[in-house]
């Protein structure tokens, strides 16, 4: 009775590889279209901020990048957890594929934050709670990727880095709260984006479109990367031989 879904069908690399290949162009295309729309709305349609002038427009990249950096870490830890519990090889490969993109967005958020901070705060860097926790998040990504890279045995690498991702994700809220408290203790109120004024609706739309653009970009890039990971992990199997021969 009912739907006879095989939940694990696409958790096998052999079936997921061609599916991922078919999905990549759609997500990549959506990413490009949404980025163009989002940047157009953000740079040309959204009004100039009366306090910050034109410089504020970097938030259309900065804020979505910061959100993605945190979301990707959580998604990565979920994949790692699934990989540890169900022993599905694909889950660990997904976690690996997500990590560089997450680290890239973290770096992007820090970098655009510095670019914004220079004209607004007059300094490239302040030890603000959010900046500091973003920096620590970058360290966590680097730790995850280095542990994986240091272990030769793929099975051990998958499980060890998976456990590290889970330990990390439990600690992220604790670190975030500690840093927040530390900051208020040390320097009192720092400059923060004023939350008093509500956001202009076009600004909000532009930002939402950019968030979706980054999502689509992430999915496309992760699928490309996970396909490479699958080929490498399964290089001795028949389906890889077939896939390579057919040039898919």
């Amino acid at each position, binding site marked *: 009775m009912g739907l006879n879904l095989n939940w694990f069908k696409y958790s096998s690399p052999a079936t997921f590889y061609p599916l991922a290949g078919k999905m990549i162009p759609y997500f990549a295309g959506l990413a490009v279209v949404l980025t163009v729309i989002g940047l157009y709305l953000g740079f040309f349609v959204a009004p100039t901020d009366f306090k910050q002038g034109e410089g504020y427009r970097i938030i259309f990249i900065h804020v979505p990048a910061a959100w993605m950096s945190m979301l990707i870490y959580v998604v990565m830890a979920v994949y790692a957890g699934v990989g540890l519990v169900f022993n599905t090889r694909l889950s660990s490969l997904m976690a690996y594929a997500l990590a560089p993109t997450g680290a890239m967005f973290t770096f992007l958020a820090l970098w655009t934050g510095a670019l914004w901070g220079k004209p607004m705060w007059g300094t490239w860097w302040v030890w603000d709670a959010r900046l500091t926790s973003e920096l620590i998040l970058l360290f966590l990504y680097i730790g995850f990727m280095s542990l994986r890279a240091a272990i030769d045995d793929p099975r051990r690498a998958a499980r*060890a880095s998976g*456990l590290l991702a889970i330990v*990390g994700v439990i600690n992220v809220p604790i670190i975030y709260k500690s*840093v927040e408290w530390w900051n208020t203790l040390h320097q009192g109120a720092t400059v923060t984006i004023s939350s008093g004024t509500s956001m202009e609706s076009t600004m909000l739309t532009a930002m939402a479109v950019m968030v979706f653009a980054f999502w689509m970009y992430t999915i496309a890039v992760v699928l490309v990367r996970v396909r490479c990971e699958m080929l490498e992990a399964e290089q001795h199997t028949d389906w890889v031989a077939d896939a390579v021969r057919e040039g898919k």
Partner: protein
Amino acid sequence: MWAVFQCVVRRDLTLAMRRRADVLTTLFFFVIVVSLFPLGVGPEMDILRMMGAGVVWVAALLASMLSLGRMFSADYADGTLEQMVLSPQPLTLLVLGKVLSHWLTSGLPLVLIAPLLGIQFGLSTQALLILVMALLLGTPVLSLIGAVGAALTLGLRGGGVLVSLLVLPLYIPVLIFGAGAVDASMSGLAAQAHLALLGAFLAPALVFAPWATGWALRISLD
């Protein structure tokens, strides 16, 4: 079960006492790192007093991390660790015993020598007391979290450097509240909140870290 725990602690302590140089190296490392700061930033007592607690804490983090390699590597090399994992005794308890002896040989000495270094930084008696209490609560957390990192990097190329990448970001909350406790007491505020939070880190770390370490050991020995 209790007997096994005692046995592990006693064995590790005996081994550490037979190789006293290892224990002393960590301690001297701690002292040297702390002593380098006045040379780097200048001898003005006001500045030193302000940074004293932070410097001692950062040095404690580094010293505790450097000694993590000793926690499992010798047992891993001679196969004892494998026997421990295979034994019918709960691995969590064995790990807890090893963590305790690691703390006794590398954490506790730091706590005991810290007041002396604090005096060099011009900390008041009150601040020294808070520093010792904070270190007493905080350094076991460092050993517990560090155990997970040590177990994950067991027998890897460049394990020593790698473990710092994994473990140091996770040490940050302990550093913040450990140094914060002393800062608070120096600026006339109560340090209880910070100490309570350090205790609040210790409690779940005592429960979850040995368990995660056991899991990591099983992964590494697989």
